[in-house]
């Protein structure tokens, strides 16, 4: 339509106000002013625009609570605009009232296809406009309230999961797990079989040490020990599966794949011993009782998942690799790491020659066949 009327004189831009915001879209400035006046009279904040391009800009800059949209617009039609708003998840929930000619049934069908929430006919009757807008306002507010409740529940659920998983993994890994919740890649899903590298760490001679110090001191020492080796596991993105007595079980390649899992376990063992050294030095100076960490690493298939009752669930790893790592740890002396043949083969290229010495084939308790074992002092 031509500029037969003075757009600038009529298209009123109401200043933004808190509360219910309505975007009126009409290329006829008198219609826009009329609709704006009626809605503003109901305490709504009204913004008027006269073309399609301005609609998208305005909606993206400050999403309104309702759009009253004339179908006959220059450039992008009201139908096209409505379809765009409904196709974008960010704007799909904004109710759209299409304004059509009274007898224009085809427009109504097209409007329904474009996702319009309601219709108004020109000439616009005051009572009809207000009744429709109030109904949509109530619906929109109810929908928004439900959405807010859903989001609050989602935040609460994620926080509970974050707390639960922070027992097992580093805060960074916990964030990643939370981020993947609900997706098909969710790592903490049902129990499943997977390749795992298991690392056990155990404090040699600690039981004897506890007999000669006060109970309170034992707890303090254990806290120091677990703090240091847990941080070492987190630095290498290991998952802590269990902490019992003075031993710690760390898994790699779970819950997320780690192609370098054997090397990570190797680095973790070194990191644990190096980080524990100053603590150990203090203990030795204080009590003189010899102690140190013994470690074992083994790799293989295991079952990983949440195991337990509805009241107590634990992220658990079960399998031969875990049993083998536990047996190797029992064999290891203070400051010694024993690795299975499979782990040795996986890391030998990255470990200085001669660093790991063969201990020959060793028959481990509970295993029918002897396995190759390699040893190193850390």
């Amino acid at each position, binding site marked *: 339509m031509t500029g037969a009327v*003075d757009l600038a004189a009529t298209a009123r831009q109401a200043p933004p106000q808190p509360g219910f915001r309505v975007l009126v879209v009409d290329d006829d400035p008198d219609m826009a002013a009329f609709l704006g006046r009626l809605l503003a009279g109901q305490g709504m904040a009204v913004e008027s625009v006269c073309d399609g391009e301005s609609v998208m800009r305005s909606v993206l800059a400050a999403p309104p609570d309702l759009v009253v949209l004339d179908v006959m617009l220059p450039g992008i039609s009201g139908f096209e605009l409505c379809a765009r708003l409904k196709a974008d998840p960010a704007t799909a929930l904004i109710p759209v009232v299409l304004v059509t000619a009274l007898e224009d049934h085809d427009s109504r069908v097209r409007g329904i296809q474009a996702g319009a929430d309601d219709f108004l006919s020109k*000439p616009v009757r005051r009572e009809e406009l207000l009744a429709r807008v109030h109904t949509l306002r109530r619906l929109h507010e109810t929908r928004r309230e439900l959405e807010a409740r859903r989001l609050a529940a989602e935040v609460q659920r994620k926080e509970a999961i974050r707390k639960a998983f922070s027992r097992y993994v580093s805060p960074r890994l916990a964030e990643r797990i939370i981020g993947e919740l609900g997706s098909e890649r969710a790592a903490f899903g049902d129990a499943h079989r997977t390749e795992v590298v298991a690392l056990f760490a155990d404090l040699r001679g600690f039981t004897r040490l506890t007999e000669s110090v006060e109970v309170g001191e034992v707890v303090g020492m254990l806290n120091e020990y677990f703090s240091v080796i847990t941080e070492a596991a987190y630095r290498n993105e290991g998952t802590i599966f269990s902490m019992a007595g003075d031993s710690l079980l760390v898994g790699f390649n779970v819950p997320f794949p780690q192609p370098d899992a054997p090397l990570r376990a190797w680095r973790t063992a070194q990191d644990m011993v190096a980080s524990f050294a100053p603590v150990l030095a203090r203990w030795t100076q204080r009590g003189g009782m010899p102690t140190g960490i013994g470690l074992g690493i083994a790799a293989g298939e295991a079952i990983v998942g949440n195991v337990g009752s509805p009241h107590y669930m634990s992220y658990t790893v079960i399998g031969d690799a875990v049993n083998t790592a536990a047996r190797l740890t029992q064999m290891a002396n203070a400051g010694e790491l024993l690795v299975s043949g499979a782990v040795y083969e996986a890391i030998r290229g990255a470990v200085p020659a001669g660093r790991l010495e063969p201990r020959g084939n060793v028959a481990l308790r509970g295993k029918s066949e002897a396995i190759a074992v390699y040893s190193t002092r850390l």
Partner: protein
Amino acid sequence: MSESAYKVKVAKDLADLIPTFLSNRKKELEALRAALAAADFEQLRQLGHRMRGVGNSYGFDGVSDIGKHIEDGARSGDKASLEKHIAHYGEYLSRVQIAYE
């Protein structure tokens, strides 16, 4: 159109919009005359269509009625009818009386 047809009742809360509304109608009348002179029936149809929508909304039923005749006349290419209704529109705008309530 009878004399009473030139009397309109407009809601008080629209009072300050009416001067611009009427100013735009006068510009519309000029646009109608220009479109008729150019035999631009599509432009006439669009202008008539807009008059139909906006007139009644403000309480100016006469604007909507004349707009409908202009839209119909433009569709059928009836120049004589268009001339008559555009002339009538000019008369209507010059004689319209507004009461706010």
